[in-house]
């Protein structure tokens, strides 16, 4: 046995993140760790990587007890971690990023040529091609992922922890990554893969351990399992399939005409965008991230004024209006990046829930704190948000629970129009099912929803109409009936053939 974690227990205040978790990893094995958000996957891996100290329990490497007090210890013991959010310097070259911490030297100088040579050698050895001289910022996300893995290999890792590695990748990049993992495992490297995407886990992993509420609910062989069984182990019940029921489409709620936005560069960020979202309709926008979706949402929500064109909400011209005016004209907004836009990490759950609701819960400018607690408390129980209390700081909530809080807050605005940007990014199947259900219910009630998602399956599942964005332009529109993953992928890639 290469690695054993035995009876690990870790509590944050009154919340137990890990309760007597045991975990074993063999050499050359791909071991997936699945579970809902807040199930304790990340905590367990942070303990292994020396970022957290467990309250009790033991870590053994090759049968010998080891103590991990910092990531340095973990690296020294041959354990490397690739974080969900890449930790790369985007203005430095690929080689510079890979050799960081152990730079080849020529006297007192940094030997860039040797670094590049090392990088090439490494990438050939493991079959992961990269260009050592390219700036990381110019590499696509799939290549950045590869750079992260090469960096860990350069540090001499035998055990590689991958935290939600496919979250930001395109379908093609995912395929390449899974292939690379398999090849490295065949060369004797061992992987711990944290993921909530069961199909990918089943495809690449040898063994799967499921966590629920900080406890192991089972360890199964991937070849003997399936998605239904894993879902059941993760959420403790069967999932219900939701179907979109037909509904009468009403009058337009949001109308965009000829929206243009110039960036600093020569190419326009948004180019003549025209579409509308009507009552009882979910309009999905598909596209590889970075093709103008973020800018489009900022224009609609008032965070950025367009250079040309008109935005009408409920018939009222709102292009260039401030956020508060657009919100009171009838918009709610689930933002694409929850940490950047969606919350204040140092503020409490109750304070984060209050944003946008202050008008309804005040008298003469004094907050009605009891009402506010009741409101947020109701969301917490209805959405099953795992939090110590309403006074817990947002930074102590897991990503999925934070997302549920944001979704609950924005749905509760009860506006005719809702922007749902990446509503389930990094969220587990249970929470995803619930958020999808809520969005469909809002549509059923006659709400107009603009959905932006980099998950094609999500766009296909929820949308009545699908628009495809490429380089700031709308390059296609498909009805839900006509849309298939292949057709959309083709449009996303600019009409060129996709593998």
């Amino acid at each position, binding site marked *: 046995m290469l690695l054993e974690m035995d009876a690990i227990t870790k509590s944050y205040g009154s919340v137990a993140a890990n309760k007597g978790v045991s975990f074993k990893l063999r050499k050359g094995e791909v071991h997936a760790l699945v579970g809902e958000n807040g199930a304790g996957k990340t905590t367990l891996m942070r303990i292994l990587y020396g970022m957290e100290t467990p309250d009790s329990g*033991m870590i053994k490497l090759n049968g010998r*007890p080891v103590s*991990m007090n910092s990531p340095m210890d973990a690296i020294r013991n041959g354990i490397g971690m690739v974080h969900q959010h890449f930790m790369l310097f985007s203005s430095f070259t690929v080689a510079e990023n890979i050799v960081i911490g152990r730079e080849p030297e020529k006297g007192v100088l940094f030997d860039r040529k040797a670094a590049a040579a090392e990088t090439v050698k490494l990438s050939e050895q493991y079959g992961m091609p990269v260009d050592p001289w390219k700036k990381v910022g110019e590499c696509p996300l799939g290549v950045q992922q590869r750079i992260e893995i090469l960096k860990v290999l350069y540090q001499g890792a035998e055990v590689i922890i991958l935290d939600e590695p496919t979250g930001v990748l395109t379908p093609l990049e995912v395929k390449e990554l899974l292939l690379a993992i398999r090849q490295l495992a065949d060369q004797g490297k061992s992987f711990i893969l944290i993921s909530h995407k069961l199909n990918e886990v089943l495809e690449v992993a040898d063994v799967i351990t499921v966590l629920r509420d900080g406890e192991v609910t089972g360890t199964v062989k991937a070849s003997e399992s399936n998605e239904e069984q894993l879902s059941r182990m993760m959420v403790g019940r069967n999932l219900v399939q939701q179907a979109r029921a037909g509904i009468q489409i009403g009058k337009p709620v949001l109308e965009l005409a000829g929206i243009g936005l110039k960036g600093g560069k020569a190419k326009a960020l948004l180019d003549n965008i025209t579409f509308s979202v009507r009552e009882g309709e979910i309009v999905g926008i598909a596209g590889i991230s970075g093709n103008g979706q973020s800018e489009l949402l900022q224009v609609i929500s008032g965070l950025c004024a367009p250079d040309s064109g008109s935005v009408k909400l409920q018939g009222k011209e709102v292009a260039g209006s*401030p956020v508060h005016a657009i*919100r009171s004209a009838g918009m709610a907004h689930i933002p694409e990046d929850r940490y950047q836009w969606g919350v*204040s990490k140092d503020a409490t759950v109750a304070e984060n829930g209050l*944003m946008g609701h202050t008008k309804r819960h005040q008298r003469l400018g*004094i907050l009605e704190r009891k009402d506010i607690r009741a409101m947020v408390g109701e969301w917490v129980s209805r959405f099953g948000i795992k939090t110590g209390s309403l006074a817990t700081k947002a930074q102590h909530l897991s990503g999925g629970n934070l997302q549920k809080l944001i979704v609950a807050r924005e749905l509760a605005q009860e506006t005719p129009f809702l922007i749902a940007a990446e509503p389930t990014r990094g969220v587990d199947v249970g929470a995803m099912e619930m958020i999808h259900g809520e969005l469909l219910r809002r549509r059923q009630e006659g709400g107009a929803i603009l959905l932006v998602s980099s998950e094609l399956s999500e766009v296909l599942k929820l949308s009545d109409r699908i628009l495809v964005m490429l380089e700031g332009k709308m390059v296609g529109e498909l009805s839900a009936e006509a849309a298939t993953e292949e057709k959309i992928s083709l449009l996303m890639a600019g009409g060129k053939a996709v593998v």
Partner: protein
Amino acid sequence: MFSLKNIAQSMLQPLLAIIAGLAVGAIAILIVGGSVGETYMEMWKGAFGSFYFLTNTLARATPIILIGLGVALAFRAGFFNMGSEGQLVLGALAAAVTVIYLPGPGWLRMIAGLLAGITAGGIWSAFAGWLDARFRLNLLIVTLLLNYIATLFTGYMAAYPLKDKTGSAAMAQTVMLDKAAWLPKLFQGMTLHAGFILAVAGTLLLYLFMKHTVKGYEISMLGGNPLFAGYGGVQRGKLMIASMFASGGFAGLAGAVEVLGTQYRFLDGALTSPGYAWSGIMATLLAGSNPLGTALAALLLAALQTGGMGMERNTDVPLEVSSIIQAALILFVSAKLTLSFIKRKKARSKNGSAV
């Protein structure tokens, strides 16, 4: 039961810091050849030793508390207002001029003087905020530089146009204010004046404002994550000008109460040389911008200063040693000597090498 435990825990940290600070001070005292016990005793006496010294300390804390509250408000909104000193002296001068030239009964002129102080400090501070919002000038630098303009301007006014020519002393100061417009003393023969009550009231009001009002909420969110506040519809520009005005208003009020309650005239340098503004900023930083904590920290700083003077009067230890003790204390208080470090060590020894 829980609260008692919590209070004990939250007290432990500052207590440890004070002990460590005093230990460093003891070394300094030994180096200059003083007696540690005697010196600290004199310091204590100088700050709290009698009713007179206690009220003296509270009087010194008054402007520091007010300035600290203003800085805390701006910090909570995410704005580094370093312009307290300029706002303080402008508030003081405005209060003096108002009381000198405004006709009417004394109480009315006193209130008008206080309001003039708030307005002058507030406008000066909001002006810096406007420069930031309009021309993207760095607020920290602008507020620091505006201090020079304000202190030199008030110095000029006191030395030339408004100079008191009646007295024999050739000081840069205005005429003495009419006694009817003075802030009343709280106790006969003591320095403590009604400004202290304003400072205490301001502390409570700011605390309640931040906790219970919509604007207080928006200010906290703006300071916590400006993008989140903007996304939620908080109007940054307006809120910035308003919170900068209030922030400078507190400093201006501090200047006004010093003029109306202690100096009874505007005297150039009387507010800048004791470093009230910087002590106020320090108090805010020590307390992490919490209004109640800021007031307590201001009191601690004032006590260290009055205590240091007492020490200098009655021992051979120079005043500078008090500054060393003060600096050491601040360093130790601001270092987050949290118990987590100790806890981790304990956990490690309990579980052997496993973790």
